[in-house]
């Protein structure tokens, strides 16, 4: 697979790798939203965690881990960069097509961007659910 320079850059120097603690720790924290999407047997699993400043409602920090191909790693790495500083509603507006465009993903790797969008939605959804904002989430669709 011949990848463009942006994918290679994110793959070789992934941004914001990690998490905000063990899975039980982050589960208990209300300021953190966790998204875990994909499946090992499909060859892609993304874990995205956002840390929200609860006074401003802005995403302070984002971390990811990814089991997947170079495009999946690059897509999730890019997602963390884009999420930082955004409000949770702004985060929800990130579209997979923007990721495709930014990374110049080849057609067979579009699903990686879809998975990254799913991970964003899952992480923000988890944050909203923890903080009783679920109705707001439903309205925004």
């Amino acid at each position: 697979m011949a990848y463009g320079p942006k994918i290679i850059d994110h793959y070789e120097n992934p941004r914001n790798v990690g998490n905000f603690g063990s899975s039980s720790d982050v589960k208990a924290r209300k300021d953190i939203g966790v998204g875990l999407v994909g499946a090992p047997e499909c060859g892609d699993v993304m874990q995205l965690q956002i840390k929200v400043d609860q006074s401003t409602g802005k995403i302070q920090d984002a971390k990811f881990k990814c089991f997947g191909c170079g495009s999946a790693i690059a897509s999730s790495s890019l997602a963390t960069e884009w999420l930082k500083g955004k409000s949770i509603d702004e985060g929800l507006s990130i579209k997979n097509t923007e990721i495709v465009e930014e990374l110049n993903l080849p057609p067979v790797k579009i699903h990686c961007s879809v998975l990254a969008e799913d991970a964003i939605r899952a992480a923000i959804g988890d944050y909203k659910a923890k903080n009783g904002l679920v109705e707001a989430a439903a309205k925004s669709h």
Partner: protein
Amino acid sequence: MPVKLPLYFDNAATTRTDPRVVEAMLPCFTEVYGNPGSRNHSFGWASEAAVDKARGQVAGVLGADPKEVVFTSGATESNNIAIRGVANMYAKAPAGSAGRGHIITAVHEHKAVLDPCKRLQKEGFEVTYLEPGRDGLITADMVKGALRDDTILVTIMWANNEIGTINEIPEIGRLCHEKGVLLHTDATQWAGKMPVDVERDAVDLLSMSGHKIFGPKGVGALYVRRRKPRVRLTPLVDGGGQERGFRSGTLNVPGIVGLGAACEIAAAERDAEGPRLLALRTRLEQGITKALDTTQINGHAEKRLPNITNISFGFVEGESLMMATKEIAVSSGSACTSASLEPSYVLKSLGVGDDLAHSSLRFSLGRWTTGEEVDYVVDKVVAAVNKLRLLSPLYDMHKEGIDITKIEWAKH
């Protein structure tokens, strides 16, 4: 000595043509260029002599009579001629009807065997696909259990191309001869590298390829037994009646000469090369498995080709692993790179889970592989797996004691 990058560890896919083979082929382009079918002038005779010499060299590595060697374009064509040719010749009912006869093969054969079998199923033949255990082995007992009164052909590869497991060919051959059933074996990964004696091993039809044994691409051979029993075939390609009528078409003289030379070199060097490759393979496997937890070597522990190893690395994905080791040419256990996200059907047939199948690499060694290269590959692969495991949410879960098979994943 520093290694020269990139490194080639994909000799089961194809090999570098041995310069000695190229040297043998060159005169066939510009000097010995006659058509071996031209019986009335010296140009034809010279080419015919070159083909005869090659036929003897190929027969030599098979323990066959030169008359039993049919030159083809490669093992895929050899497999097709053998399987479809036997089925159509020995069919028990005419075309268009059902119950034309029974064929036995295995689920983890090469596509060049499976697809002809599937076509024959559509044409009224019945096919049994044997299923191996975790070691990938097909035994004579498994074949025995599947034999029927209307079985006309057993086609089982000698050694598997993805995992290197060596099937019980002599035992299966003897069983087939007892029962009066023909045995074809796809010996693409075996013939030339490992000893063959079609008499001792009771093989009736055998496919082999030039480019897997340091010969040229586009040439192969099919061994067709001439006595006890005399195997008959319905040809797939009709025309000038070359190759005993089994395969019409002007002979690819340079390719055939190359295949012959490749066989002769392989036979002369085999006794030294086998142990050398096994030592290198062991060095590779031990280097990797000692440095990394949660890895597994796929296929049979002992009954395995000395030049192939297929390793699954838990919690990392195959394509990203290949990206991280891009200066090393290997094959991945999943076909991601060919745009379909299917994990290897061979690994799946052994019960390797889809997740591990996606995380598998096949390393295949060759004539020019060195110990320094193996050490370099070990270091690179270990570093790449460690890097990707730092990125892997699955490895975190594994370390936290979470069983990832128990999680309800949303399949996509």
